[in-house]
């Protein structure tokens, strides 16, 4: 079984294939950029300072201190919640688990927000009133 044909110059098939593969590479990158929840992070801010940026898929409980005391933030199964809060109204705790958007505890000045593509619920909207 000798070589198939003696001409080993680049064939038309080669060119088409290479073009297709480059096309596929580039567009798979673009596809990933658009579709995947690329780098979804949980940002935890307290009293105006960014304290943590954590990947959403870890399981972790962190404690942050605000003016009223310690707020406990829990990350589990790609969701996040405020588990305990020293504030009075506990609106943040009642919000429960979230996968996108943010939980904000105004009294204790804690902002837990989820960034990244997965959070782009309203990608074309620059602000929300109401």
């Amino acid at each position, binding site marked *: 079984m000798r070589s198939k044909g003696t001409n080993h110059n680049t064939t038309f098939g080669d*060119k088409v294939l290479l*073009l297709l593969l*480059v*096309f596929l590479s*580039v567009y798979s*990158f*673009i596809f990933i950029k658009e579709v995947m929840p690329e780098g979804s992070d949980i940002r935890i801010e307290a009293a*105006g300072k960014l304290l943590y940026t954590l990947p959403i898929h870890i399981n972790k409980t962190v404690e942050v201190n605000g003016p009223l005391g310690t707020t406990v933030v829990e990350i589990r199964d790609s969701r996040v919640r405020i588990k305990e809060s020293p504030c*009075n*109204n506990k609106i943040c705790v009642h919000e429960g688990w979230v996968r*996108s958007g943010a939980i*904000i505890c*105004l009294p204790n*000045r804690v*902002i837990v*927000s989820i960034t990244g593509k997965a959070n782009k*619920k*309203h990608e*074309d*909207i*620059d*602000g*929300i*009133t*109401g």
Partner: protein
Amino acid sequence: MKKTFIVFIALAICALSSCNPGKESIYKESRITMDTLVTITVSSSSDTVAKAAVDKAFREIDKLGKLLNFFAGDSEVTLINKSAGSMPVTVSKETLDVIERALHVADKTEGAFDISIGPVSSLWDFHTKTMPEEDALKEKLKLVSYKNVVIDRKNSTVFLKKKGMMIDLGGIAKGYAADRAAEVLKNSGIKSGIVAAAGDIRTFGTRPDGSAWNIGIKNPRQTGDDDEILAVIRLSDQAISTSGDYERYFIKNGIRYHHILDPKTGRPAYGCRSVSVITKEGVFTDAFSTGVFVLGPRRGMEILKKMGFDGIIVDSDGNILMTEGIKGKIEVKGNKP
């Protein structure tokens, strides 16, 4: 073949890395200030310039928050309230500005927006579901009238005529702060951006691609994740504020008690579910959205037309009313009653 191929690869790499040096990009930052979440979004070609400008704008809002806070013991507003019935209080230009505009709006809305509602709103607590006693309400209502708020431009003083009167700038301060923050941004070399103090949004300039900013209006009866937005409106160099009965409320015996109180009755106003007002300045959108809400859909619309403002009203049956001026700029997502 070879040439097209190289061009294609170059284009593809460009698309991937978005190789456009000096291109305007969005910088966004949120902070808790004025007892709410304030988000500033700016478009700038330099991250450093954007950060510095945004920081300056936040400091301006912080400053205003300290002056105008109804609850802080050391604010100018608290000082005015403490001196009610006894003496005029010298205040900063900013505080005077806000109160002056508040009185203007009160005048235009026939008292539907009234900053002297303080004594009555203090009787309600929407977290603990506390309603005022009938007698207490009647008693405190007597203290509510913006006509008894006297400002003296020349001496920069504010005086509340009756003892026990209290002004609460919560319905106008955030809009004013958004305006001021936008001015600070412009003076710091930012050409376009958004200042959103909770629901009070002030836009200036356009998005990096030259289009208007898209602002979503919250659905007052949201049921899930997919119907959060009632409509999207395109704005540039305009402000929008929304007042809604869904922001702070409790339901008792099937009745929704919400935080937008009618200064005439001291009780929640029931004609609307949500009112959005659009005009150049946030200080007016903020105050008028409350005033129009209290007046109800019919009279509210009349006032908007008279003032030359734009607005969207969701009435108590879920119907959406809007002024002629925004019909081409708005996209209504859904109308679930």
